[in-house]
């Protein structure tokens, strides 16, 4: 196996490292689900994965293509109704960490997954809110994972689907959101974290080989950079092996090309 790795691989691996063993994690489909399961298969075997379709404590051996694949239900500690998931488990305050993707993100880690362009005449109609607004509002903390380009890291969201830190500062507290909000945004270029006070996203880590210029080019606002900027540790051979085996098993099971 080669220890060369792709930008997507270090993104997934860096995100997985942020998940603590034993945390109760509400997982979105796609990149969040991949990173969460990588964490479970490496350093966090006791992590509790909750999917909005109903499975609690899912331990899939392959990645689900959709949020409600049978693999989630048959490997879960229990499967409850979708209503119960949102009411008792999320709104009830039992989620340590919400893990989301996004189509657009702004400097305060607010998220758009609804439309590009005006709402009534969108140039692109995106899928919409799903579970995200309430996950972003009520989960103890939030992690966001997405690829970083000028089109995804934007100055102004076309639509506020899910609130990160709003207008910054103590915005969340002022409007009555119960969770702490986003604590990190993991991209294929680096890691951004909200400033302690003003809550603006600040670049705290560059993935190996990525330059500051590349990150600035992929950011639609004047990016703040931490004075204590780190380089993300390269993926270990073990992390890469587990991730690639997971992807291989998944592709085989779905009868799909590896992606």
């Amino acid at each position, binding site marked *: 196996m080669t220890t060369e790795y792709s930008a997507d691989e270090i993104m997934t691996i860096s995100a997985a490292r942020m998940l603590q063993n034993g945390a109760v994690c509400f997982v979105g*489909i*796609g990149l969040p689900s991949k990173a969460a399961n990588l964490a479970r298969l490496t350093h966090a075997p006791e992590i509790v994965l909750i999917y*909005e*379709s*109903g*499975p609690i404590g899912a331990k899939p051996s392959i990645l*689900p*293509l*959709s*949020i*409600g*694949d*049978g693999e*989630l*239900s*048959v490997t879960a500690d229990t*499967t409850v*109704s*979708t*209503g119960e998931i*949102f*009411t008792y488990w*999320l*709104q009830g305050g039992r989620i340590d960490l919400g893990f989301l993707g996004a189509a657009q993100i702004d400097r305060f880690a607010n998220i758009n997954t*609804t439309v590009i362009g005006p*709402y009534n005449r*969108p*140039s*692109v*109609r*995106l*899928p*919409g*809110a*799903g*579970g*995200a*607004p*309430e996950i972003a*509002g*009520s989960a103890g903390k939030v992690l966001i994972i997405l690829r970083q380009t000028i089109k995804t890291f934007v100055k102004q969201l076309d*639509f*506020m*689907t*899910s*609130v990160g830190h*709003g207008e910054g500062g103590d*915005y*969340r507290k002022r*409007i*009555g*959101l*119960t969770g702490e909000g986003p604590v990190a945004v993991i991209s294929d270029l680096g890691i951004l974290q909200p400033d302690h006070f003003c809550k603006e996203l600040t670049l705290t880590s560059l993935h190996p080989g990525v330059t500051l210029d590349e990150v600035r080019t992929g950011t639609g606002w004047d990016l703040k950079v931490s004075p204590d900027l780190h380089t993300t540790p390269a993926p270990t051979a073990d992390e890469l092996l587990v991730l690639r085996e997971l992807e291989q098993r998944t592709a085989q099971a*779905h*009868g*799909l090309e590896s992606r």
Partner: protein
Amino acid sequence: MARILPLWDAVAELIHDGDQVACEGFTHLIPFAAGHEIIRQGKKNLTLIRMTPDLIYDQMIGMGVAAKLVFSWGGNPGVGSLHRLRDAVERQWPSPLDIEELSHAGMVQAYSAGAAGLPFGILRGFTGTDLPKVNGKIKAIMCPFTGELLAAVPAVRPDVAVIHAQKADQKGNVLIWGIVGVQKEAVLAAKRSIVTVEEIVDRLDPPPNACILPGWLVSAICLCPGGAYPSYAQGYYDRDNKFYQSWDMISRSRDDFLAWMKKNLSNKPGISDFRDRFRKSIEEVA
């Protein structure tokens, strides 16, 4: 009391033009066969309600049965866009589609309120988002005990709920297991209901606390093996992820979509081969 009916009779009798119809099933047990029958019978001006429109509403919207969509997440899960839904919203094809969107948490409260006979559902949600600006039915309400501001959404009361389940008995009692989504709430909230099933058995013998819809709650049971394909029926068949990927290609252009629908939906369904037929339909495209 549930009557055991052929699918086409149930759809003809229970679903009328202009009805609010909720075809539910969260990834699992999506009632594709029933949706196809709605298309085949040329129903019009329906308000389609569903948390995750999925391929079935993409097909129904593209074939022009819907005037309005009430939903919370409209994509092809793990693949990308629903192209027919996008075409309707972005370019009003085949006809303009009114949309009313919530979040998942909002939708489950709307269904639960409908099931509970309450006028509205309540949640800690939508705070700070733009959704209340584009959906005037999302309102703020103050807790009379603590003063906390919460969100209220009107109850969903569909004319008809349509779901797929694993099995029913001869009396029409329905047993569902696995990911059960909001199917129970949808049936309880609706005035009428159609349940398609993989099999009809003499005895269900469910364990206590199993998810059961009693026969006296349901309007019609229709035997429809494979009726959730290309979604899945736990214990019967898996989700056909290849179909979901192929749909991206089939549905991209209006002509390809119409040709596929015409070819695969034009005849009366042979319910015994529902799954085989649709599985074959993607092999020709791939």
